């Protein structure tokens, strides 16, 4: 049995995620779309905090909400007149999009309800993931170590920096 506060918190987060993701793709103004995306990312971070993954929630806020959304806002302000509406969506395209999204969601939902004997599982205690242990795992080379992906990501980020400079440079 969960505490009442936990359940109320869950419903606030779930309703925020659903409402703001629908608003993100239906609003006409692109800057509002980016703002609603920011709220969706904050709600996701709250979901991570509720599941006791505090480091992951902090990374979500720092990288997604603090980095990617700022990049989006900069790109939008560089390429659009403030307050301008985007082009209206044509009707048959809209119905195609709704149909594909609904079919995908229904297939996923059917698979979950029919196959998932695991759907009724509940949270078990605290996970015992301290920052200390997380750092040890991130930089170790034994069985549950993640040094190789860590270094691969750092090389990827270097390539991304160089690519960004080369692409965005004025010729």
């Amino acid at each position: 049995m969960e505490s009442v506060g936990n359940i109320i918190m869950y419903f606030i987060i779930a309703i925020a995620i659903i409402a703001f993701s629908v608003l993100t793709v239906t609003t006409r103004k692109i800057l509002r779309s980016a703002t609603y995306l920011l709220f969706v990312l904050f709600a996701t971070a709250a979901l991570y905090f509720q599941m006791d993954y505090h480091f992951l929630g902090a990374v979500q806020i720092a990288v997604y909400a603090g980095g990617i959304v700022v990049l989006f806002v900069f790109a939008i302000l560089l390429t659009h007149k403030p307050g301008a509406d985007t082009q209206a969506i044509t009707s048959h395209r809209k119905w195609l999009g709704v149909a594909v999204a609904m079919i995908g969601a229904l297939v996923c939902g059917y698979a979950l309800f029919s196959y998932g004997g695991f759907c009724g599982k509940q949270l078990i205690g605290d996970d015992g993931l301290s920052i200390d242990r997380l750092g040890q795992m991130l930089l170790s080379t034994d069985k549950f170590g993640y040094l190789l992906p860590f270094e691969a990501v750092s090389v990827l980020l270097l390539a991304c920096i160089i690519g960004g400079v080369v692409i965005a440079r004025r010729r």
Partner: protein
Amino acid sequence: MNLTLLMYLIPSIIMFGCGVYGFLTRKNMIAIMISLELMLNSVDINFVVFNRFLFPGQFEGMFFTLFAIAIAAAETALALAIIINVFRAIKNVDINQINKLKF
């Protein structure tokens, strides 16, 4: 009332559906990138939820999400650089107007 695994997956499914809808219907390149971020985010939620509920004490899903966030950040930065460069060439970010590879 208990909070089960399924209850955490439902917002994730709806978020992914919204991402697919926006990806198919939007004409603006930046709006398409925003829909892509929604889809990536919902997949991240799935990884974390399955890890936390089904395999507590192991952290594979969490680390996968951590690296996925880093890769999503790199991908978004490059895509936005390309979009700004396209805008500089043809003064537009509408996918209907962009039909030439070389300007």
